[in-house]
C-alpha cells in the first residue's frame, strides 16, 4: 500500500468468505500472506478456505504461525499444540493464555510464567521465566529479545535472551498492551480504566491517561508510536504523543459505531479496523479521523480482525463462524 495524501476513496471488497464450525477467536497472517484462523471449538483454517482441520484443542486462546509451514495453538488446560513439526504431542503448560514469536524465538505466557522456545521445531523443555504477573492477558514483543507481559499482578518486561525478568510494574490488573519497539514506547490498560503510556528507556516514569468508565480491552499504537487508539463502548479515542513522549492533554474522540466495539486491528500502514457487535466493520485512515473510509458487514458480532503484513488484506471473523478476507485499496484522493 502506498502512502498518499488522503484515503477518502479507499475501497474494501470481500475477496473470499467461508464459515468455520464455531466463533472465530484468533486470526493470524504468516509473513508470506497465509491465513490462520482458529475457531472457538478448536478447528483451524490453515492457508486457504477449503483446508479446515478437526478441533486441535477444546478451548483455544491464542495461535500463531511459526514460519510458513508450522503453527502453534495454546489452551489453558492442554498447553501448546503444534502442527507442522515431527512431534505431535502437546507441550503441557497450565494456564497458557498468549503466544508470540519473533526473531526465531517463540514465547508462551500464562499463569505467572513465560516460556521461551526456539523454532522451527519446539524444544521439549522450554526455558521458563517467572513474570509474577499472575494470570496473563497480554504478551507483546517490544524489541530485541524483550517481551512485555501483562496480567493480574501488573506489567513485566522480560529478556528472553538472558532468561530473566527485567522490570516489573505493579498496575491494577493489566488488560491489554500495545507497543512499538522501534520508538521504544509501550501502552498498557488496566482494570481501573486507565491507559499507562511508558517509555521503554524508563518504565517507572510513565503517563496515566484516565477518563474511561470501564477497562479498555481494545488498544493499539500506530507504527510510528505517535498515536494510541483505544476502543471503549462505541467510541474510539486517539491520544497523540509527541516526539518527546509528551501525551496530549485530551484525546480525539469519535463515536465510531452504533453498537459496542468488539474487535480492533491495526495495520503496519497505519490503517485501523474496528468491528462491532452488529457485525459492522469500519476501516479508518490515519489521515481522516472523523469518519471511516470504508465499511464491510458480516452477519454477526465481530470477534477478530487481522491485517496482512503488507496491509493489503484484512481478515474478519465473526461469532457465527463466518470468516472473510477483504482486499483493501487505499484511496488516492484527499
Amino acid at each position, binding site marked *: 500500500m502506498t502512502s498518499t495524501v488522503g484515503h477518502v476513496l479507499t475501497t474494501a471488497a470481500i475477496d473470499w468468505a467461508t464459515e468455520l464450525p464455531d466463533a472465530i477467536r484468533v486470526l493470524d497472517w504468516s509473513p508470506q500472506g497465509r491465513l490462520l484462523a482458529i475457531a472457538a471449538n478448536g478447528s483451524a483454517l490453515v492457508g486457504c478456505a477449503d483446508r479446515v482441520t478437526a478441533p486441535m484443542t477444546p478451548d483455544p486462546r491464542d495461535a500463531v504461525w511459526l514460519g510458513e509451514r508450522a503453527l502453534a495453538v495454546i489452551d489453558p488446560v492442554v498447553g501448546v499444540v503444534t502442527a507442522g513439526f515431527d512431534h505431535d504431542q502437546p507441550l503441557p503448560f497450565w494456564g497458557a493464555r498468549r503466544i508470540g514469536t519473533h526473531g526465531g524465538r517463540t514465547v508462551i505466557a500464562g499463569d505467572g510464567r513465560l516460556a521461551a522456545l526456539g523454532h522451527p521445531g519446539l524444544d521439549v523443555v522450554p526455558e521458563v521465566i517467572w513474570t509474577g504477573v*499472575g494470570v496473563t492477558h497480554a504478551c507483546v514483543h517490544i524489541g530485541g529479545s524483550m517481551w512485555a507481559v501483562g496480567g493480574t499482578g501488573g506489567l513485566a518486561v522480560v529478556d528472553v535472551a538472558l532468561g530473566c525478568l527485567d522490570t516489573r510494574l505493579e498496575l491494577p490488573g493489566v488488560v491489554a498492551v500495545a507497543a512499538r519497539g522501534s520508538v521504544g514506547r509501550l501502552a498498557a490498560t488496566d482494570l481501573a480504566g486507565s491507559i499507562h503510556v511508558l517509555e521503554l528507556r524508563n518504565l517507572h516514569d510513565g503517563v496515566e491517561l484516565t477518563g474511561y468508565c470501564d477497562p479498555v480491552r481494545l488498544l493499539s499504537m500506530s507504527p510510528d508510536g505517535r498515536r494510541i487508539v483505544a476502543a471503549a463502548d462505541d467510541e474510539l479515542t486517539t491520544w497523540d504523543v509527541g516526539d518527546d513522549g509528551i501525551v496530549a492533554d485530551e484525546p480525539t474522540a469519535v463515536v465510531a459505531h452504533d453498537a459496542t466495539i468488539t474487535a480492533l486491528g491495526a495495520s503496519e500502514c497505519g490503517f485501523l479496523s474496528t468491528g462491532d457487535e452488529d457485525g459492522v466493520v469500519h476501516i479508518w485512515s490515519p489521515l481522516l479521523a472523523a469518519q471511516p473510509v470504508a465499511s464491510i458487514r458480516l452477519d454477526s458480532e465481530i470477534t477478530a480482525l487481522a491485517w496482512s503484513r503488507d496491509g493489503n488484506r484484512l481478515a474478519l471473523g465473526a461469532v457465527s463462524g463466518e470468516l472473510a478476507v477483504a482486499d483493501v485499496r487505499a484511496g488516492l484522493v484527499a
Partner: protein
Amino acid sequence: MTVLAPETGSTDLVQRFAADPDNLLIASGDTLAAAGLLGLLRVGRAVVVDPDVTSRTPGCECCQVRVDLIDAVRHAVVRRSPARRVVVVVDRAVSSGCDVSTGEDPASDVVTAVHTLQADSEVDRLAHLDGVVVEIDAASVSTRMASGFALWSPQVEAALAIADRIALTGSHLLTPSASVSLTAALDDVNRIGRVVGESASGIEGLVGLDAWREAPLAIDALGVGDAATSRSVSETPTSSRNVAASIETVVLSRVGILDPDATNAWLDRVIAESPGGLLRLQGALRVSTHDARVCIWGSRSAVRSQPETPRSGPFGLTRSECESFVVVVGHNLDRVALSAGFESIEVAS
C-alpha cells in the same frame, strides 16, 4: 448465569447442574475432577478457571473482582451456539489466599463473584445474573448449632444472605425441632430467597429465577408489598432466635413519582457510605423519566438498572404504578439513615 456455591466437598449439586445439557459449567479443575466432570471440557460444556482476584482500585476490598471469571464468561458465551445457561461454581474450599484469622478468602467469596459479574461491562453485555444458589449441609449446621459453635463463616453467611435459593441437603436427618431451629437461623440471615429441600433430583426451582434484574418478588413475603404501605419499613434479625445474624436486610418502600436526580444522588450516597458492607441492593423505582418503574440491582460498588418488564410473578404481587421498593442487604447498615434518606427523595414536580 447462575452462581452456585456448593457445600464443601459436595458434588451432588454440581453433577445435577452438569446433567442438564443446556448448562455450561465454569468451575475450578479440582471441582470438575472431584465431580467426575473433566470430560465436559472436551465437549465444550465446561470452562476451567483458577480464581484470580484483584482490585480495580489498589487496596480497596469492595472493588475486588475475579478476573478469571470475566475471561471465562467471555469465552463461554462468545460461541456460535452458546449454552443456554452458564453456571459459575464458586468453591467454598479454602485456598492459599485464605485469611487464617477470619476464614475469609476472596477467591471463594460468592459476593466477590456476584460483584464481578455485575461490575464488568463486557460481562454485563454478554450475559446476566439469573440467581444465586447456595448449598448448605443441614446435618452439619444443626450439629454446630447444638454444640454452640458458629454456624457458618462470615463469608458463607454473606453468601446465604444474598442467595435466591438455599439448597438444603441432609435435612431428612434432622429432628423436627432441629429442623425448625435451622429454618429460623436461615430466615434470620436471608429474607429474600427461598429454602429448597432435597426432594428434587434435578435442578427445578434452582434455575430460571431471573431474580436480579427484576423487582424483588419476594418482597411481598416481608409484608411490604401492599400498596397501602407507604412508609419505610426495616427488617432486622430477630434476637430471640438461636443465632444472631450480623447481616441486616432493610426494606424501604414509598409511594410517589420520584425525582430522578434526587434518586440517583441517594443511591450514590448509599453505595459510598457502605461500599464494603453492601452485599445486595435491589429494587424498583418509580421515577419521572420512565413510564415503567426502573429496576435496580447490584452489590458492593456495582449497580445496574433497566426498565421493569411487566409480568405477573409467582407471588401474585399487586404492583401500584407509583410504588417504589428498595431492598438493601449488608453489614452494619444504618437503618435509620437509609430510611430517612429514602423518604427525603424529592417527588417529581
